[in-house]
């Protein structure tokens, strides 16, 4: 937005010189689109990276572990480093000038010194303790400052550290670990929302996804992981629809991007048929596994997701006077619902013939999504949906190269069709762009 406003100011200046507009109009236009007062993210990232690298340098400096340096001197250095970093950040906070980046940079350095302190004390006293606890302590230090400053970069650091803590406890110590999920979900996700940070929101959602799936797959059963991923992705997509009306409308793009990516990957997975993929799609055998809680979770997630999407279709259905883009969107939602119904159908003990039908239907739904993405992209003259649709379609054709198109003639036909389709897409996109330009010229004329 800031980029556009800057461009507009340049143009307004030019128009003023050329006499196209007067000073009053120019002032009104520039007042309508003010330059954003948001911070410089480039500068902020440089400051943050600088603080991180400086902190790492200090840690490595202490890692040398001079025998000649008494432990009292080492401890004095680390405590003074911690307090002075935070102290400078505190002092800068009170200055009237906009020093947000520096303030966050120094507090980040302070958190790095806190980490250096943990490792240094462990070094001084030859501690060989449960190492994930150090990650937890460091992460909690960053988390508390993330809320206190408040600071997105501390939140990002805390998310990474708490995630690594959870992964270490799960994989290295074989512990059922829900604390990391709770900390991220209850403290860092709200911080992302409060700070309106898309980056932190994306990282926390990915961390929650990863930790939850890892915990379930590692400790209980991997058979419901796929369905949980699928349902979670669709829930994110549904929430993205409603999040536009919240105080953080930018969150919609994050939720939609993550949801669409995971949903697309899941749908592509459903187009592969094998014993393993069927085991991930179907319901675990209750006779063999007894009725565990995860069966209820499996059904609960599927039913809630289906209900949510039916509600979304009812609320967001395209009326009679809907634009072509809205109609395409409605069709995409129908395709999502069909894919959900396919997954539901897999949960019943179906025959191989019916499973083959569901497999074929999954291919058709993915192909339909690709075509709808291309149509929507060309209608709106957005290259990203077009490119995504074309690439996914190519991936689908390549995936089916062996198991669907066994004869050379079929393979040849598939390539001819996909090649012709891509030519047509390119032609349609260019034509739409031309039409749009002509319409604009006619309007100006």
């Amino acid at each position, binding site marked *: 937005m800031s980029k556009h406003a800057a461009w507009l100011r340049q143009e307004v200046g030019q128009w003023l010189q050329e006499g196209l507009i007067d000073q009053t109009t120019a002032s009104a236009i520039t007042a309508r689109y003010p330059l954003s007062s948001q911070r410089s993210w480039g500068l902020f990232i440089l400051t943050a990276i600088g603080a991180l690298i400086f902190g790492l340098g200090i*840690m*490595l400096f*202490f*890692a*040398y*572990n*001079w*025998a000649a340096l008494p432990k009292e001197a080492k*401890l004095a250095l*680390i*405590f003074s480093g*911690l*307090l002075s970093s*935070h102290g400078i950040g*505190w002092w800068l906070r009170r200055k009237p000038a906009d020093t947000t980046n520096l303030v966050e940079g120094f507090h980040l350095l*302070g*958190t790095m010194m*806190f980490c250096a*302190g*943990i*490792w*240094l*004390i*462990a*070094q*001084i*006293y*030859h*501690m*060989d*303790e*449960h190492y994930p606890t150090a990650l937890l*302590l460091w992460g909690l*230090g960053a988390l*508390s*400052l993330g*809320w*206190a*400053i408040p600071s997105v970069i501390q939140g990002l650091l805390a998310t990474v550290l708490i995630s690594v803590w959870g992964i270490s406890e799960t994989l290295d*110590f*074989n*512990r059922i670990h829900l604390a990391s999920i709770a900390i991220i979900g209850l403290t860092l996700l709200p911080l992302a929302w409060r700070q309106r940070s898309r980056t932190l929101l994306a990282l926390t959602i990915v961390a929650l996804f990863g930790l939850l799936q890892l915990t379930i797959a590692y400790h209980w059963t991997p058979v419901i992981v796929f369905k949980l991923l699928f349902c979670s992705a669709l829930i994110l997509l549904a929430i993205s629809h409603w999040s536009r009306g919240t105080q953080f409308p930018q969150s919609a793009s994050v939720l939609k991007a993550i949801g669409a990516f995971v949903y697309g990957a899941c749908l592509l997975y459903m187009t592969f048929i094998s014993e393993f993929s069927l085991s991930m799609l179907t319901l675990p055998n209750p006779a063999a596994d007894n009725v565990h809680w995860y069966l209820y979770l499996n059904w609960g997630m599927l039913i809630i997701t289906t209900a949510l999407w039916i509600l979304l279709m009812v609320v967001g259905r395209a009326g009679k006077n809907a634009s072509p883009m809205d109609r395409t969107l409605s069709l995409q939602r129908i395709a999502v619902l069909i894919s959900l119904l396919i997954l539901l159908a897999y949960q019943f003990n179906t025959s191989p013939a019916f499973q083959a039908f569901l497999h074929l239907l999954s291919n058709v739904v993915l192909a339909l999504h690709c075509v709808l993405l291309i149509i929507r992209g060309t209608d709106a003259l957005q290259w990203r949906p077009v490119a995504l649709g074309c690439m996914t379609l190519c991936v689908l054709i390549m995936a089916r190269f062996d198991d669907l198109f066994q004869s050379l003639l079929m393979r040849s036909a598939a390539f001819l069709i996909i090649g012709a389709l891509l030519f047509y897409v390119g032609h349609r996109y260019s034509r739409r762009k031309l039409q749009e330009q002509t319409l604009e010229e006619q309007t100006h004329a």
Partner: protein
Amino acid sequence: MRNTLLALCIAAQAFTLAWMVYGRESVIAHGASVSIATAPLDPRDPFRGDFVRLRYALNSLSHAPTHWIPADAQPRKGDRIYAVLQERPGGLHDVAYFTNVKPDNTTNELFLRGRLRTDNPGNAFNRVDVGYGIEQLFVEQGHGIDIEQRQGVRGGLQNAMHARVSIDANGTAVLTGHDWNALAIGIEIASDFALNRGADADNGVGATTDTDTDTDTDTDTDTDTDTDTDTDTDNTVPLTLTIVNQSNAPIGLNNPGDNCGFRLEPMNRIISEYREPEGICSDQSEAPLTLAPGEPLVIPIDLSAPRWHMSLPLADETRTADIRSFRDNGEWFRLVYRSDEQNGQVSGSASASTAYWQGELISQAFNALGQVD
């Protein structure tokens, strides 16, 4: 309000570090100081620099009896384990037994609090079953290798490191330093260590069960035996034990009879079925031996001699033979000198015994194939 919150968070970071320091310093100030024998290795930590990884005998549950409560308890990875210590000759501490219940403080038993690091303790060779938080010694960069060199190398002389540890009443331990054993020990395996078995060596063992040992008190072995082995016996000694005094003062050792100051024993004494045969080194009088500073003591170990035979209970009988002749070659053995239990034969006066060097010397482990740990 926000400033207060920020100040509290910064104070919490400083307080966390201060609490870590206080916890360790209070153990050092008020805890009991003990020495425990250890073996160092030299890795590196990206954040903390060079450190020496220490391995203690008490890391392995197979090293001492276990007193689980209840008796059929199966401790799992992550569970608390307590190693109750006992003082050994020479002031070193070793584990008396392991338990899963915290020992009563009123008994004044000194114990280490650890955590089980594996679900299958004791099944793997030389692994850490229980960690006590004292397994890392951080040193200045480049100095880890010095410690390794001082400790010695495989097949050469090795000097045992003694870790100095402070332990508080709850079993929390802090590693405060280290020193070195005054005696270094080494074994040399001959190139023709393994037995050259005959074609009919499929009896599980090539020796008869009744060994008639007639041993002189000279240090040179001179034994008569009716063992019926299929081995090629030549004049080469398969194993040579060397002890060197690395201190600046003379050291007295008690080594009566046919090197009866030393014993051959399986590495895992608790679980191994190998035993020293009855009657070996019995009725030996005390025999002082003084090593001047830097002086080596070289002892050829003829494993085919009955003095060094081991007994193993088989399906129908107990067989006593050269360890190399047992078909089960998976066992690891060590040569050990312990000032307090020299085969129970020390009969000298108390004053004479205390003049000897007090402590234990343990060689590197070796197996019947001539492999050295």
